[in-house]
C-alpha cells in the first residue's frame, strides 16, 4: 500500500504511514470517508485527468476545511491521508491530528467541516454535489426558488378578469339593446296614440286627402272601359 503523505518532519513518517495502513486495511473505520469523483460525467470533453497533483489539491482543500471549521491552524496537508485510489476515481481519506499523537480526528468533526465548506471544495474541482460525492455525508439539497405569490395565481387572476369583463360587457350590451328596442316600440305606440280622435267612418281625418275631393280611385281607373261619347 502506498504511503501518500509527505511529512515535514521525517520522524513522523513512519507513524503516519502506519495510521494510513491501519485505515486502509479496514476501510469501515468510523473516521474514514469514501469519496467518489465523476469527472467525465461532469465535464465531458473538458475532463481533466486525476493524477497526483489533483490528489494534492484535494488534501489541501480538506486541510483548508478543517482549519476553517475549528479555527486553529494546526491541520497541515500532511495530516490528510488518502488511500485505495481506484480507476473509478474513488478513494478513502482520513484526517489525523498531529498534536494528539497521530490519532484520527473524529468523523463528526470532519463531516461538519466538509459540510460547511462543501461549496468551496466543489468549485475547486469544477464539480458539483453529485459528481464529487462524500459517501457518508448527505448534502442538503437547495430548495427551488419560490416567489412570494405563486405564478399560477397571477396568471389565473389575469384570465379571470378578462373573462369576467367579457361577460359583463356582453350582458350590459344585451340589456342596452333590449332597452333600445323597448323604447322604440313604446315610442311608436305613443305616436299612434297622439293622433286626433276625429274620425270619419273609422278613418282619421288627417289620413283623408280632403283637397282631392271624393273621387273614388277604383272607378277612376276604369274610365277607359266606358266608350267615349
Amino acid at each position, binding site marked *: 500500500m502506498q504511503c501518500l503523505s509527505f511529512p515535514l518532519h521525517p520522524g513522523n513518517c513512519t507513524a503516519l504511514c502506519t495510521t494510513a495502513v491501519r485505515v486502509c486495511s479496514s476501510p469501515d473505520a468510523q473516521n474514514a470517508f469514501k469519496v467518489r469523483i465523476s469527472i*467525465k460525467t461532469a465535464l465531458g470533453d473538458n475532463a481533466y485527468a486525476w493524477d497526483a497533483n489533483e490528489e494534492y489539491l484535494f488534501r489541501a482543500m480538506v486541510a483548508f476545511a478543517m482549519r476553517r471549521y475549528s479555527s486553529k491552524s494546526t491541520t497541515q496537508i500532511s495530516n490528510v491521508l488518502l488511500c485505495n485510489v481506484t480507476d473509478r476515481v474513488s478513494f478513502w481519506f482520513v484526517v489525523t491530528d498531529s498534536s494528539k499523537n497521530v490519532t484520527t480526528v473524529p468523523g463528526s468533526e470532519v463531516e461538519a467541516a466538509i459540510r460547511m465548506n462543501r461549496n468551496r471544495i466543489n468549485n475547486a474541482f469544477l464539480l458539483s454535489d453529485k459528481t464529487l460525492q462524500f459517501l457518508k455525508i448527505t448534502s*442538503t439539497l437547495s430548495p427551488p426558488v419560490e416567489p412570494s405569490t405563486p405564478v*399560477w395565481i397571477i396568471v389565473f387572476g389575469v*384570465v379571470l378578469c378578462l*373573462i369576467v369583463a*367579457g361577460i359583463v360587457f*356582453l*350582458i350590459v350590451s344585451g340589456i342596452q339593446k333590449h332597452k333600445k328596442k323597448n323604447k322604440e316600440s313604446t315610442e311608436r305606440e305613443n305616436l299612434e296614440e297622439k293622433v286626433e280622435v276625429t274620425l270619419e267612418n273609422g278613418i282619421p281625418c288627417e289620413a283623408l286627402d280632403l283637397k282631392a275631393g271624393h273621387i273614388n280611385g277604383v272607378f277612376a281607373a276604369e274610365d277607359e272601359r266606358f266608350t267615349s261619347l
Partner: protein
Amino acid sequence: MEKSRPLWDNPLQFVFACISYAVGLGNVWRFPYLCQMYGGGGFLIPYLIMLIAEGMPLLYLELAVGQRMRQGSIGAWKIISPYLCGVGVASVVVSFFLSMYYNVINAWAFWYLFHSFQDPLPWATCPLNSNRTGYEEECEKTSSTQYFWYRQTLNIAPSLEASGSVQWEQALCLTLAWLVVYLCILRGTASTGKVVYVTASLPYCVLIIYLIRGLTLHGAVNGLVYMFTPKLEQLSNPKTWISAATQIFFSLGLGFGSLIAFASYNEPSNNCQRHAVIVSLINSTTSIFASIVTFSIYGFKATFNYESCINKVILLLLNAFDLEEGSLTADNLNEMKDHLMATYPQEYAQLMPQIKNCSLEAELDTAVQGTGLAFIVYSEAIKNMEVPQLYSVLYFFMLLMLGIGSMLGNTAAILTPLTDSRVIASRFPKEVISGVVCFMNCIIGLIFTMEAGNYWFDIFNDYAATLSLLLIVLVETIAVCYIYGIRRFEKDLYTMIGCKPNWYWKIMWAFVSPLLIISLFIFYLTDYILTGTLQYQAWDATQGQLVTKDYPGYALAVIGLLVASSTMCIPLGALVTFIRKRLKRERVSTVA
C-alpha cells in the same frame, strides 16, 4: 308575432361547430390507446369499416332530424311521434350528466396551463422533504409527473370512502372553466358561432406543431414503428371490432342531442348530407393524426426512459466495481456484465436484485388511456424537451380548446330544448337560463374537486353515458325508420336538400346500424353481468401506484341511478303521453 329562430351566420359556422364538438379529448386520449391495444396499424381496418357502417349514417340521421324539425331534441322527437318525447328528455338528462363532469377536465387543463409559466416546470422535479435531505417519499416511489398529478393537482384520497374536503385551487379552476363556457354560450348562436372558429381550428395548428416537433425527437421513430406495425391477428379478437364500433359511436357524440340542436339552427335548405360526410371524415382523420403525434411522443418517452435505465445500471456497476468512467457503455454493457459475473461472482450476485433488465419494448408496451395519457405521459415527455414551457403551454391550450368545443355542444343540447319551450323562454331571457344552468352545474361539479373527486369522475365517465346512449340512438334509428317511415323521411330530405338518399343510406339506417347497436348493447350488458362486482383503481400513496378496489354499496347505487335515470325516461315518456291522451279522450267523450 313569433320570434324567428336564430341561425348560423353561414354553413361554415355549422360545420365548425360540429367538428369542434366531435373532435374532442377522445380523439387524443382514447384512439391511440385502442390503436396500440388492438393491433396497431391493423386497427384502422375495423375502424374504417365501422365508420362507414354506423358513423356516417347515424350522424346524417341526427343532423337531418334536427334540420327538418328545427327544434331541440325534446321538440324534434315529439314531432316524430308524441310517444317519443321520452327520448328527447333522456338525451337532455345524459347531456346534463356529461356537462357536470366534463368541465372538470377543462379545470385540470387550466391548472396545468397556469403552472406552465415557471422554470423549471413544477412536474419536472420532486419537491424536497421536510429536512431537505432528499425528495418527498411518495415522489421517490413514483415519478415526479405522477406525483404532481395525484398529489399536487388532485390531492387524491386513498379510496372512494375517504371523501376529504373540497380543494380550493381546483374549485377556482372549475369556476373559471364554467365562466368561460358561459361567456361562449351567452348569446346563443351569435356568440357560439364566433367561438367555434377558434375552438375548431386552433387544435389543428397545435397538432401540426407537435407533429413536426414529435417527429424530430430522438427515439420518436421507435414509437411509430412499434405502434403502427399491423398485428393482423388481433382482427380475429371480437373485442377489436367492438372497440372500433364503440369508439366511432362515442367519438361522434351521437345521442346527446347536441347534433340535433346544432342542426336546428340551420337554414332548411342546408346540405346536411355533405356536411355529415365531411364531419365524420374529419373526425376520423383527426384521430389518426393525433395518434401519430401521440406515438412519436410515446417513442421519445420510452427511449428516454430506456436510456436512463441503462445509464443507471452502468453507474451502479461502475460504483460497485470501481471501474473507470466510460469503460461501460450501452453497447458493451452485456459483454461487460458477463465478464464481471465471471470475475467477481460473489459481489455480482449481491448486486443482482438491483440490476434491472432494461427493455425498450417493455417501455413502449405501457399502454395508458384517459387522463393518465393526457396529463401524465404528455407532461413527462414535455419536461424532457427543449423550451418545455412553450410546448407545455401549447399542449394544454389545445386540450382546453378541445374540451371547450365539446362543452359548447353539451350545453347547446341542454339549452336548446329549454329555450324552445315557450313556458320557460317567455318568462326568462336566454342569458338568465344559460346562467342558471352553468351555475347549477358548477355547484354540483364541486363534488369532483374533493379529494375523492377523481373516483366519482371515473364513475361518471364510465357509466353515465355508455348504456343510455346506445339505447337512445337505437330508439332514434328505429323511430325514424319504422315509426316515422323511411319513405316519409326520404321525401323530407328531398324537399330540404333536393336529392333523395341513395340505397347505401337506407340500408344502413334500416338494418345495419340498428343491428350493430343491438350487438354492442348486448355485449356491454353481458360484460357488466359477467364481471360481477365493479372495481376501480385507487391511488396508494405508500406504494406509489394504483391498486384495485371494490366499489362500496352507495357508489354502486349511484351507478345504477345514473343509468336508470336516463334510460327510464324513454318508457316513462311514452307512458305519460299515453295516459294524457287517454284522459283527454275521456274528457272529450264526457263533454260530447
